[in-house]
């Protein structure tokens, strides 16, 4: 052997040995750095604060990437830092929608979450398994100042876990006011009035009556979710029965209407031509500039209209999604998102995080949020006032809050059961791929998976 290969052989063996051991070391080394990264932002921040001199704390704050959330988060961070110079807050962003849900759940599960984070309240909050993953905030002094609707949406077993981020918002229809004036239309109080308005707009022939933007699937859900006030008005115990697996979308006359309305709008041809490929930004542009007249949407969209279409802000109005009965007309309300503290935040970061949450849930915090971005509804903290000059759509929505019985929380805040595939099912119904009743049935099946995963009784 030696004679054949001569000197190169020991070098070859040596080289192979070095290569193999370096590979192993790299694999181990890589694992170690990954380990320190996931050991918790807490330990990294602790390292940072120690280096900075013992008192300064840096908190990382994860928010979604909508313009509104980023603006509000940075405003809160800056104003909090002014009042508390020893705490610096760094804002990080994550995607919205189902991908954002995925990211938040995974980071919580692996212990890799930032020091504080913002996320939806209601059923999405329930899906985070809060008793295991979040810090309970029941002892905080500001808990008593919260508006009525908020604590149930961020609590499990009467233990509260979050502070409100942003305003409450309504789910209904944004509409283009100049077109209404031009065609002499009135805000509809019943579904039939809404459809006849649509017919008149279609007859005028210039713009699309109803805007749909299925490129971003979450926007397709409004006809179903925004209709819940009408469902609650017709069947007051729907939410309870729904959680106990006794009421279903497919079998409830009131609840299946949401799906049927979606099918009706599609079959009447009222949708914009590019409904399948338009996205959320297109939808806002169309309703602000009058390329389309009705856009079923949540009112947090108003902040983005203010940011991107400042000239057209007052051209956009709002009305609640009408049901069958003009008497019980009212708006479905979404409670604001919550700011939560993951259980992995400890020590100096935890104290700073509690102080930050106290700031968020205070009148100063509300002021900071108003300065950062246009509010699109009332704040759910006592003592928080709204400014006088609000966009027209918000002004249209506030009277619903003042009238008795004109608001209902959306189903996801009354019941932890919400299926993940609703957005795809509503896209199918709205595109004419599937019928309304079939879609409702499909959603009921989808919801069963979520209920079983949560371990609810009766499923």
């Amino acid at each position: 052997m030696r004679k054949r290969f001569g000197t190169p052989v020991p070098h070859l063996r040596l080289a192979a040995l070095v290569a193999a051991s370096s590979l192993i070391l790299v694999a181990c080394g890589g694992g170690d750095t990954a380990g320190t990264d996931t050991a918790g932002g807490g330990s990294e921040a602790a390292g940072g604060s120690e280096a900075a001199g013992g008192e300064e704390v840096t908190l990382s704050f994860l928010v979604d990437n909508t313009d509104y959330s980023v603006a509000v988060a940075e405003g809160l961070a800056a104003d909090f830092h002014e009042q508390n110079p020893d705490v610096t807050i760094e804002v990080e962003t994550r995607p919205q929608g189902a991908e954002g849900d995925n990211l938040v759940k995974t980071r919580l599960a692996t212990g890799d979450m930032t020091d504080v984070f913002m996320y939806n309240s209601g059923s999405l909050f329930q899906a985070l398994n809060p008793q295991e993953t979040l810090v309970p905030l029941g002892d905080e002094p500001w808990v008593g100042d919260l508006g009525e609707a908020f604590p149930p949406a961020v609590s499990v077993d009467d233990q509260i876990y979050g502070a409100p981020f942003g305003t409450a918002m309504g789910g209904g229809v944004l509409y283009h006011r100049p077109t209404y004036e031009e065609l002499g239309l009135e805000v509809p109080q019943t579904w039939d009035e809404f459809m006849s308005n649509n017919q008149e707009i279609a007859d005028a022939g210039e713009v699309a009556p109803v805007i749909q933007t299925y490129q971003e699937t979450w926007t397709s859900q409004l006809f179903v979710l925004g209709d819940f006030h009408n469902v609650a008005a017709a069947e007051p115990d729907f939410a309870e029965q729904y959680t106990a697996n006794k009421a279903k979308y497919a079998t409830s006359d009131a609840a299946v209407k949401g799906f049927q309305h979606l099918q009706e709008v599609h079959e009447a041809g009222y949708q914009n031509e590019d409904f399948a490929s338009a996205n959320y930004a297109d939808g806002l542009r169309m309703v602000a500039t009058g390329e389309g007249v009705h856009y079923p949407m949540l009112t947090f969209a108003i902040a983005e209209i203010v940011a991107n279409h400042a000239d057209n802000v007052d051209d956009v109005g709002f009305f609640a999604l009408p049901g069958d009965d003009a008497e019980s007309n009212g708006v479905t309300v979404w409670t604001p998102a919550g700011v939560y503290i993951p259980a992995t935040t400890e020590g100096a970061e935890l104290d700073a995080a509690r102080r930050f949450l106290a700031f968020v849930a205070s009148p100063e915090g509300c002021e900071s949020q108003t300065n950062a971005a246009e509010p699109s509804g009332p704040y759910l903290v006592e003592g928080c006032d709204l400014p006088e000059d609000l966009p027209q759509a918000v002004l249209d929505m506030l009277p619903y809050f003042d009238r008795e019985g004109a608001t209902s929380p959306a189903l996801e805040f009354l019941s932890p059961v919400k299926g993940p595939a609703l957005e795809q099912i509503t896209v199918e119904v709205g595109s004419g791929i599937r019928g309304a009743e079939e879609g409702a049935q499909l959603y009921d099946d989808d919801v069963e998976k979520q209920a079983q995963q949560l371990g609810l009784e009766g499923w």
Partner: protein
Amino acid sequence: MATTSDGVAQAAGRLTARRARPAKRKSPYPHWFYLPAGVIYITLFAVPTFASFYFSLTRWTLFEVEFIGLENFVQFFSEPALVTGLTNTLVFGVVTSAAKVVLGLPLAALLTSQIIARGYLRSVVFFPVLVSTIGVGITFTALMDPQDGVINTSLALLGIDGPGWLTNPSLALLSVAAVDVWRGIGLATVIYIAGIVAIPQDLLEAAQVDGASTVQRFWRIVVPLSRPATTTVIILSLIGGLRSFDLIWAMTRGGPGFTSDVIASVIYKQYQAGFYGLSTAGNVVLFVVVTAIVLPLFWFLTRRRVEL
């Protein structure tokens, strides 16, 4: 080293043993080199595969595990959205695989013949394989936009009303398959080029002398003798096609609705929703489907291999 003592030992061995011991004693030493790769393989592939078989029989939240038997699989096959995923996967895999075979071989024959700028053309054909899948997906989504995309505006110039490539439920999956073929044809072509180049020139020259036309030479000589390359292309592209996820996710996210969902995107959506047990069950189904299709196919294709 120890040549002298080796020599002495061998001489002693010859004297005493008379080939009672085999001349070369099998040393376990070479097997130690399998160890690093074996450890990595077992830890990263074998263990998770068996763990996934276990977790697919449970409902788990990453913290708690509840054994539920085959319920996840029953659910997987009873939901229409999930069964659509299965059929779409098979369609996608077969269409992309067939297209790559049918288009790759003539292309490779062209790129091994004497044409101008052959090297440049080979690079151009292979280039899409190197580009990021997500980048390709986003680009083609923009190109295929029904109103403003380049494809439909060009067709409009010719007077044709282009359909909604990614928004029409019946076309969405096939449009994504077309982009996948555009992207993967380079790899198929390269494999075929390697196969064609291995064909002895004498055969082709002899055929040419005997009066065979280019087409006859292609069909009678190149195609049969490229069978090993064809087998490789079919197997690789079928496995890739059945498991395909990133292009579909980047272009349609399984939409519109559920019409372009494949098993991989269904699994991902279940994972996103936090149904980890169901998602793992989907992975097991995918594993079984791919194995059940590819193993028999591989056996069938390779047992009729033509020996050169």
